[in-house]
């Protein structure tokens, strides 16, 4: 039966072929195993780690800020936040809706949340609401099983215990805005705050510290299985500033409802003991993102609470500038203690009639009398004789027209004009009228309250170029201040003038004088016109500045120091639209200096 033989015979080679096919198939699998597990192993090992390792960033506590006495003026407070981790919820929208039923969210917050959800990867926690109170936290905890992906996070939030008192010095922190984004991933962490103004901004890097990371093993649903590695980072550096909170408070309160600024300086060290700008605001409002309404209120307030007037408010110095003019003239030898000019109430300069503030004039005046009475005619004459360039040089030596390294980055330089300056800036020649105006601190001259305080400190400390400082230096670091090479005779004459301003009968600030255990104040008033009272207004019966609308009233200035013999404190006070330096600014300065003496800082 050959057909059967043939049938059997054909099986053998075909079975061998099938075996070969099986072996080839197994070799294909082995090749694939080699490719995946050896050749591409590194790639897949990385992908496997990316799968299972979730890196979270730890925000280090921000550095504490102390005042000169160690009082905490900026700290971190515990704060409960509700976070949503997208990858841990099957239905983010539903979870969010359930959450909203428990905790009310404002339309702005909802907007921010949906923007964050779009922006961030699914494993990055999204902040739903911060500053939760205990009641809200327990509500969320109670409903935790129905709120997958929602976590309560114990965070730290910036707190300023003295609120508006330090708003302009410390500034505030706020959420990272798009323009602040840096490469560092910590900027992406929800709830991370950066300094937005003041020292918080300029010292942001120091205060931030080093961000830490924690590597967590997570499963496919994002649940954390264990911690693999933790790098805690380091907390931000603490900073001590030179301000004394008690004096700061006194200065702030001395302003009452007035809008303005005051700077108190230790005349020997240059340390700023108080720096206030009023009205102020509560920087705590900014920590978690200020509400639209609050922001608008601050922005549209005509008294500009957001601006630090002490360093960025530029004003004409008015009669306070007479100190500079007198020193320039005395040092140039143009005048001496005996030089007298006759004040008849007015004089013609370059074809224009220049008035003294006192309509009937002061009669013959020497430099001390002219300072005491704030006689304008004397200083017109003096300025014309000494010339603007010498005044300019003296102003610069006394610290005007520049910015100081105090750690606040919104300082203004002011303006101290010179002939060259006018040529460059206005393309016009310097006139006698310009000199006369500069002689009484009007016209082009601009200063900030910080400038005035520094200038006065340099005059009353015996002519040393103290630099104002706001950050407390290590105790062993004493700065030796450069001598300005101004004769003690000149300085004493000016000091004498300032003594009489306050303490002599008829001095312009006589009402502000005090005597605490023999310690008295010297100073100089200044009133600068914002706008002349027009003829029309005079006819309408407005003859006094106080009757004008607030915005148009004169600025009131006063610089003062104490004690007279061995001065320790210098203060500069500017009251915006305060009408009268003697009536409004001097009493504020007087209160501040009395407090400084009482505290004996």
């Amino acid at each position, binding site marked *: 039966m050959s057909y059967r033989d043939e*049938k059997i015979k054909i099986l053998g080679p075909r079975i061998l072929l099938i075996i070969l096919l099986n072996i080839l198939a197994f070799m294909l699998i082995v090749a694939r195993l080699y490719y995946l597990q050896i050749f591409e192993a590194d790639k897949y090992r990385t992908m496997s780690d990316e799968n299972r390792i979730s890196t979270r960033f730890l925000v280090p506590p921000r550095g504490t800020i102390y005042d000169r006495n160690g009082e905490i003026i900026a700290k971190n407070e515990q704060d409960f936040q509700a976070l949503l981790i997208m990858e841990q919820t099957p239905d983010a929208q539903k979870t969010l809706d359930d959450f909203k039923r428990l905790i009310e969210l404002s339309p702005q917050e909802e907007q921010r949340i949906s923007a964050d959800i779009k922006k961030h990867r699914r494993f990055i926690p999204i902040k739903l609401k911060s500053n939760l109170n205990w009641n809200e936290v327990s509500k969320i905890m109670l409903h935790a099983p129905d709120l997958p992906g929602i976590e309560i996070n114990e965070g730290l939030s910036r707190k300023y215990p003295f609120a508006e008192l330090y708003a302009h010095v410390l500034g505030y922190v706020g959420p990272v805005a798009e323009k602040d984004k840096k490469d560092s991933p910590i900027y992406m962490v929800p709830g991370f705050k950066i300094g937005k103004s003041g020292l918080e901004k300029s010292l942001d890097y120091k205060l931030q510290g080093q961000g830490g990371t924690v590597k967590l093993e997570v499963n496919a649903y994002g649940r954390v299985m264990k911690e693999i590695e933790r790098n805690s980072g380091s907390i931000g550096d603490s900073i001590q500033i030179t301000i004394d909170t008690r004096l700061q408070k006194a200065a702030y309160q001395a302003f009452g409802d007035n809008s303005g600024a005051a700077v108190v300086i230790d005349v020997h060290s240059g340390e700023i003991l108080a720096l206030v700008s009023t009205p102020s605001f509560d920087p705590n409002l900014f920590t978690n993102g200020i509400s639209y309404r609050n922001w608008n209120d601050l922005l549209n307030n005509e008294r500009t609470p957001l601006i630090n007037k002490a360093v960025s408010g530029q004003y004409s110095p008015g009669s306070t500038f007479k100190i500079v003019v007198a020193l320039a003239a005395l040092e140039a030898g143009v005048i001496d203690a005996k030089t007298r000019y006759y004040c008849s109430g007015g004089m013609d300069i370059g074809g224009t009639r220049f008035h003294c503030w006192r309509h009937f004039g002061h009669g013959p005046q020497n430099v001390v009398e002219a300072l005491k009475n704030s006689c304008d005619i004397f200083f017109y004459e003096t300025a014309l004789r000494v010339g603007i360039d010498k005044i300019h040089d003296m102003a610069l030596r006394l610290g005007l027209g520049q910015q100081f390294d105090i750690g606040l980055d919104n300082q203004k330089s002011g303006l101290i004009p010179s002939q060259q300056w006018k040529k460059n800036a206005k393309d016009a020649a310097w006139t006698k009228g310009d000199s006369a105006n500069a002689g009484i601190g009007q016209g082009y001259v601009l200063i900030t309250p910080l400038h005035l305080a520094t200038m006065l400190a340099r005059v009353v400390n015996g002519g040393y170029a103290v630099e104002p400082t706001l950050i407390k230096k290590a105790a062993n670091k004493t700065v030796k201040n450069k001598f300005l090479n101004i004769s003690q005779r000149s300085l004493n004459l000016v000091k004498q003038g300032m003594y009489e301003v306050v303490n002599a009968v008829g001095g312009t600030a006589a009402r502000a004088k005090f005597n605490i255990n023999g310690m008295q104040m010297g100073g100089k008033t200044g009133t600068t016109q914002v706008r002349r009272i027009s003829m029309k207004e005079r006819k309408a019966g407005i003859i006094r500045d106080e009757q004008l609308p607030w915005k148009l009233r004169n600025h009131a200035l006063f610089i003062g120091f104490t004690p007279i013999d061995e001065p320790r404190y210098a203060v500069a006070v500017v009251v915006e639209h305060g009408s009268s330096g003697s009536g409004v600014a001097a009493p504020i300065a007087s209160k501040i200096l009395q407090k400084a003496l009482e505290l004996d800082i």
Partner: protein
Amino acid sequence: MRYSSLENQSESLYSKFLRLNISYILLIILLAIIGTLTLYSAANGSWEPWAVRHISRFVLALGLMLGLALIDARKYYKYAYAFYFITLVMLVLVEVSGHIGMGAQRWINLGFFKLQPSELMKIGMVLFMARYFSSMTIQGIRSIRGIIIPVVMALLPVGLIFLEPDLGTAIMLLLTAAIMLFTVGVQWWKFVLVGILAVVALPIGWNFLHEYQQNRVLTFLDPERDPLGAGYHIIQSKIAFGSGGLFGKGFLHGTQTHLNFLPEKHTDFIFTMFSEEFGMIGGLFLLFINLLVLLMGYFFAFRTRNYFAKLVIIGLNTNYFLYIFINIAMVMGLLPVVGVPLPLISYGGTVMFSIMASFGIILCMAVSNINADNFNED
């Protein structure tokens, strides 16, 4: 007489048991133990819920295997057609009840056991083919007319199973039939012709696929197409393989599996899990054991002189080979994910019993008819 067709009727079950190939059985037990331990790891180091049931099922299935191995080999020949047709009827029943009920249905509920006719058909069709070609002349095999019946008898269940829909089983059945046709001597050119026709018909057949099946094929061709959906499985599986490296992450330490990145780790993707924990070394070992099982099967086929036995062994061995190859190739991203488990390792009762049954039949064929060329000689 050369063609002695009768086996020794008086041989006791015990002596037949002693003649069973013990190394073959030991290899099968080894595979089941590996499967049990892998399932223990899949449950994060717990016997529950899979490992303990897997091993107890295996013990039952081992009994089934030995029972089938000890049956008189001529019974398989005798009831081959009957078995095939009963299974075919059950397939039709499943298909009909599936239409009456809702959605896909693959099993008949016997109360204690859910019977999948498609699994029975893997054996039924092999028996049918083996018997059919046993009584066919070489001329008949080489003629078109001679293979019409087996081709139709193969395509009928393939079509029914495809409609269930169970693409994986349908393909396995189709390939098993093709290999058997090839083994008995159907000419090369007929396969080439059918191949060409298949390529031409592919676009038409595409429309018959369910959307999820189409997606599986498309996703296989480009896993990145749907990285969070269907492609997720295969991407995660490749990551598990690759990160296992040469030596693996260690027993119970596969992160992809234990952190649930790998889906279906206890069923279709169990080889992935094994390879993540034991690396390429482990994978090679498991492949080697399986290759040994296959080669021993082919050795049995060569050794027996009985035509029917040879064909049954080739058919069932091919079925086992296809399980292993399709499963491993699909979890490694070489084939689309068609839902074929890895026998003895993957968790699941149906494949356990069907594969153990086919091992039983192979054992039976291997020892019972060494001296008999054909059963229908008498």
